[in-house]
């Protein structure tokens, strides 16, 4: 799983039938440090993530299809959660 920031969304009237009614978010991939990494991607969102929120997402096709729940579909990225906080880089000794 990966983290990213919601930077917008796309609207597409004409799209694969399996994506009917799905919210399509533009997500800027982030490194754990918070720095932007690579070009924005498009993911389906069932979590109601909003602009500027940090999200947990997958770019694994099988996982994205599980989230979509419509069997075999042409989907390769999905939001799994909205991030409240990441604690990273600290050790047991602080």
């Amino acid at each position, binding site marked *: 799983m990966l983290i990213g920031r919601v930077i917008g969304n796309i609207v597409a*009237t004409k799209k694969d039938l399996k994506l009917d009614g799905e919210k399509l978010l533009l997500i800027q991939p982030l490194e754990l440090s918070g720095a932007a990494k690579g070009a924005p991607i498009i993911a389906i969102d069932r979590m109601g993530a909003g602009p500027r929120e940090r999200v947990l997402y997958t770019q694994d096709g099988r996982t994205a299809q599980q989230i979509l729940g419509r069997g075999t579909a042409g989907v390769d990225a999905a939001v799994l959660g909205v991030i409240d906080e990441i604690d990273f880089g600290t050790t047991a000794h602080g």
Partner: protein
Amino acid sequence: MQLGIVCGSLVASRKDDRLEGITLLVIQPIQPDGKATGKALIATDSMGAGPGERVFWVKSKEASNPFAPLEVPTDATIIGIVDLVNVEA
């Protein structure tokens, strides 16, 4: 999925039988602001996209899924035509 713009097409008379009748388009991956990012590639088209249209596409194994139950051997497929890109960050 990723954004792209259709910038050409490709014709191959001799190809895998399962690609028969399927449109092959050249797409340039783009950023939300329309700037090119990365290298252009060839994708199968399940939507009837045309030159200059902004599209979104899926890659890897899932690229074959929009054609199900046909098992089309493809690693990139256009699955939607973009009407609008909203950038709010």
